[in-house]
């Protein structure tokens, strides 16, 4: 059922925010087709009446009392930042300024 084209991979790479090169796009299109063919076997067995499992061991939401506890200082949080300014993360422009 799979048949993943180079154009599909280009679109997926855009969604995943990875600037793939032309040769990476070519290689991935072929490989993903083979992989999807193999993993597509999951469609052979699991009928709609089988409930999906999202988590192996049952989990419920966990809450704690709303009490202040020590956390990282701004300096610690910013120590590994690629760029920081005025105790904030400095990021490239996020708006299109024409």
């Amino acid at each position, binding site marked *: *059922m799979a048949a*993943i084209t180079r154009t*599909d*991979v280009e679109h*997926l*790479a*855009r*969604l*995943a*925010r*990875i*600037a*793939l*090169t032309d040769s*990476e796009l070519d290689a*991935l299109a072929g*490989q*993903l087709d*083979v*992989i*999807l063919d*193999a*993993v*597509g*076997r*999951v*469609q*052979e*067995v*699991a*009928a709609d009446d*089988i*409930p*999906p*499992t*999202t*988590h*192996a*061991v049952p*989990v419920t*939401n*966990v809450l*704690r009392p709303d009490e202040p506890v020590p956390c*990282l200082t701004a300096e*610690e*949080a910013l*120590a*590994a*930042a*690629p*760029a920081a300014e005025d105790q904030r*993360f400095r*990021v*490239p*422009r*996020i708006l*299109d300024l024409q």
Partner: protein
Amino acid sequence: MNDLLRCSASALAARIAAREVSAVEVTQAHLDRIEEVDGAVHAFLHVDADNALATAARVDAGELTGPLAGVPLALKDIVVTKGVPTTAGSRILEGWIQPYDATIVTRMRDAGIVILGKTNMDEFAMGSSTEHSAFGPTHNPWDLTRTPGGSGGGTSAAIASYQAPLGIGTDTGGSIRQPGAVTGTVGVKPTYGGVSRYGLVAFSSSLDQAGPCARTVLDAALLHSIIAGHDPMDSTSIDGPVPPVVEAARTTDISGMRIGVVKEFAGEGYQAGVTARFDEAVALLETLGAKVVEVSCPHFGYALPAYYLIAPSEASSNLARYDAMRYGLRVGDDGEASAEEVMAVTRAAGFGTEVKRRVILGTYALSAGYYDAYYGQAQRVRTLISRDFAAAFESVDVLVSPTTPTTAFELGSRVDDPMAMYLADLCTIPSNLYGGPALSVPCGLAEDGLPVGLQVMAPVQADERMYRVAAAVEAALGTDQLLEQAPEIP
């Protein structure tokens, strides 16, 4: 070789506690061994001699105590450590120093365990050979031209080459057990939620589990008991008693235990020497008084395809955090480029081939129009696999299989063929999807002279059962001494 290096962790701890040898001496002996052999093995990405010796000195001063106090350990570089780099094998995190310790790191340090350094791994734990590390492959101490398995090949290779008697790995689809099997060491994936994930670099959150690596079953159990237990910082951590793994590892009596051999994990694709050692181990279990039966788990054959949809899907979401904004690599920020463009070129530069492949695959499996056919179906298969386990555990106490279909493969032989690489995890993946514990214990050498692992799988929260079986096999076969047969590292 210095005799301290050959000592088991529990024996070392006893000698240190009795003041026959100091923790500093033991630590220095291992640091010297790293210096001597790690150029050839490349198990470590960072060696942290100063902190290691400082922790050892605190053990010698009586400030830190515990059943493994003073024993050195190799830590997979996916576990965060305050003040020491954590890369997870990726360029995108190169040089990243994080401001806090993982819960398991805190627990180990408080118990006097000496962390020697951080070990090599496939990037973000995606791989079965450690060749997908951005920092070069690790070599298998049994044959330096072969891989030590993956993703935790660095930890297992360190243990197998006497650079450390203990290690920590993480297992999402077999990354502790498969390297354990192909290096002749013990590797344990505890029950999901049995060990805190706080401070682990996330790959596939519903599958990831940290666990112990060692040369003996008892050493693994002792480390397991130190790192396990509820952690309020991990909301998936089990709030319940830790299974009695140490007692189980000291019990070599398995008479009356019911052991199921997984019918589906045999035959075509299984190396003759692996099958031979496995069959002998099964016969041995019967000799030791266990009741062995064949069990069919009809959906186990679908575990690999389900895994390679679920894990990449979760990874594509988890790895979205590497966005070049708050930490890690940033490329292309020239004042003109937008944040989105910087993200895309940073991720292109910082991620390796396998990570890109899986993020794209996961993005596809989760995208509109394909979600039900791929991710949804994979989650239904996950249910069927759990039902196979539940049905099996109605009639047997544990399941056994070979850990891997083959012994260690040659460096370079599968790295360009993703499907061939994925097959290395064929037998280990079901336990991750189900959430139950599983371990690999050495059961001899194959016809090629390389180690074979026996996998023991147990029900959720019955971790002690697999330790009992593994301890019996180890005692009967003497496989705690198997590494004596490995060649000297040139």
